[in-house]
């Protein structure tokens, strides 16, 4: 029996659950498309006006859309008692958190990144910026998932956590946003995006090392108050 079996099982389970709840999976995508549409209408739709703001607007939209998926990250497992069984069981919670984050990023982070070309088209993003935007979003959304993992774990046992989750998560997104859209801006202005991209990757790495233990500790808080 492979030592990684529980962790792969959790990823498979989360994929299966997501595919059986396709509406929940597609909601952040629909949200992102609608927000971008509103922006393109509000900004008037001319390419010269849209080009400088397209990348930052897409970044903010993708982060907000990803945020929408956080509340359901642990809530169902808390409510049906699965989480208590994990906490009482022999399998490493930190390891389960790594699986949870990976599955969530593959479903939502990478999913939203894959939808970005559509968003870019709607906002008339210059085509030469698209590769950098995709690369920055792929890296940045992984970091954003780690932030979300910690915050979702901390608020998992609270009944109405939506606003609290936003207050915790959104300020922490800021550094990712600055360097993520900074990398795209550098390309637009003819500079090298290297520094911004490396700083983005460094943050993501740091967050990845911190997130799983922090989330595991967060889930233990309040285990004496079952739902």
């Amino acid at each position, binding site marked *: 029996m492979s030592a990684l079996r*529980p962790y792969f099982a959790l990823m498979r389970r989360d994929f*299966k659950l997501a595919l059986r709840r396709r509406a929940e999976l597609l909601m952040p995508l629909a949200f992102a498309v609608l927000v971008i549409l509103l922006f393109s209408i509000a900004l008037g739709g001319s390419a010269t006006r849209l080009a400088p703001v397209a990348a930052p607007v897409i970044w903010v939209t993708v982060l907000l859309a990803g945020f929408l998926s956080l509340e359901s990250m642990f809530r169902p497992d808390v409510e*049906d*008692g699965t989480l*208590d069984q994990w906490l*009482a*069981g*022999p399998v490493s919670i930190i390891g*389960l958190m790594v699986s949870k984050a990976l599955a969530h990023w593959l479903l939502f982070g990478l999913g939203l990144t894959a939808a970005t070309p559509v968003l870019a088209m709607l906002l008339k993003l210059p085509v030469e910026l698209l590769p950098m935007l995709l690369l920055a979003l792929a890296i940045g959304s992984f970091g954003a998932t780690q932030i979300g993992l910690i915050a979702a774990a901390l608020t998992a046992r609270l009944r109405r956590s939506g606003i609290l989750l936003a207050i915790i998560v959104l300020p922490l997104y800021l550094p990712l946003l600055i360097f993520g859209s900074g990398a795209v801006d550098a390309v637009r202005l003819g500079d090298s995006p290297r520094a911004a991209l490396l700083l983005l990757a460094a943050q993501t790495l740091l967050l990845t090392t911190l997130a799983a233990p922090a989330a595991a500790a967060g889930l233990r808080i309040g285990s004496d108050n079952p739902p």
Partner: protein
Amino acid sequence: MSPLSPTTPAPVLLCSHELVCERDSEPLFAPLHFALGRGDLVVLEGVNGSGKTTLLRALLGLNPLRATRLEFLGRDVLGERHPLRAGTLMLGHLLGLKGDLTVRENLEFALALADEPAAADPDALFAELGLAGYEHTPARALSAGQRKRAALARLAASLRPLWLLDEPFANLDAPGIALVERLLARHRARGGGAIVSSHGLSTIAGASAVIRLEHPH
């Protein structure tokens, strides 16, 4: 060697001295001393709110617990975060079933996520549970009693030496109750032990001891 026996077979699975659980720094019940041997079934009795669920959760490390001694499988586990970790299976009020997964998937994932081997013969297992023909039904489409039976599949497939069951008879019909008793009897015959909570109205056949949770004052 049976999968239940540890490297040095201890006759006593779990023993405690002066065990107390607290709520808002008030003790919930008078200090408990008990020893649970292999093949023993201890019934936990007490009125609503007497702390039965809290005690079971405390043994799992989900609620705080105080004791002067707590040994599991011959090892001192007092002060460990999850004292009974690898050796225990809990079935509580929350069944841990995913409504969107089928009965069979629920069992597979529950076993895999607890790092227990997959059920050797799932078809026979579901037949025994009275769920034959429902293996591919999503758990959300089942009745309350059927959901309970689907959760009992965890017990039927488990090799853990200690079972902590919180009101296992709730929602079950007479054949369901007989089923739980049969699972318990088989578990005990293999050298496993169990603590079963009950509100005291139904008697549990063949209990080796009864712990009554009394209010401390």
